[in-house]
């Protein structure tokens, strides 16, 4: 079972954790991304996230489907937020439950690594002296 959500308000770890709960689960691994206060030593004020929404949801679902199959996951929940986020707020949560714990770590890491490569979501970092689209340039 897969739960994909793209939201413009607060993400809650408890929601993802509740979705992946299963009597057959021996381990659940949850990745919680948070907005860091600095990038390469430069103070970050806030972030803006925007998404090409229908495709972002499709791509997140693809990732979850691939992880379900590759790691024999029981349930996967991926929530991503868009809009303006302050330091410490949560842009992404990924929860994966599996019968054995090693697969949960692998599957969760696969999901976040792949999400960062393929899902059409963009973030702009705001500094005191300007702003930049993250990863846009080599």
């Amino acid at each position, binding site marked *: 079972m897969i739960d994909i959500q793209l939201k413009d308000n607060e993400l809650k770890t408890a929601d993802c954790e509740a979705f992946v709960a299963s009597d057959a689960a021996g381990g659940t691994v949850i990745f919680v991304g948070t907005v860091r206060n600095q990038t390469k030593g430069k103070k970050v004020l806030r972030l803006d996230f925007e*998404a090409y929404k229908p495709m972002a949801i*499709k791509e997140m679902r693809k990732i979850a489907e691939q992880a379900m199959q590759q790691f024999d996951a029981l349930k996967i929940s991926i929530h*991503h937020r868009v809009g303006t986020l302050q330091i410490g707020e949560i*842009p992404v949560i990924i929860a994966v439950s599996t019968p054995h714990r090693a697969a949960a770590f692998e599957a969760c890491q696969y999901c976040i690594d792949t999400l*960062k490569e393929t899902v059409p979501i*963009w*973030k702009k970092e705001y500094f005191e002296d300007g702003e930049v689209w993250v990863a*846009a*340039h080599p």
Partner: protein
Amino acid sequence: MNINLVAFGIARDILGNSTQKFDLKKGNTIEELKAELTSEFPKFEELASLKFAVNETYQQDDFLLSENDEVVIIPPVSGG
């Protein structure tokens, strides 16, 4: 051939608009669109990557475009 460009993130800044009609003068593939687009907007060449989506799916260089296709410009993603 006219197509409808949709641009996000830095691609929107480069294009100057989030949506824009584009007259593809030569050819009808993603590769040819990319060439014409970067020739008109050289800043696209400076990006770490430049991909295109049609029908909410990444399409390869040899994908054949049709009149009035909606083509989404995907600059380097940075979600998560």
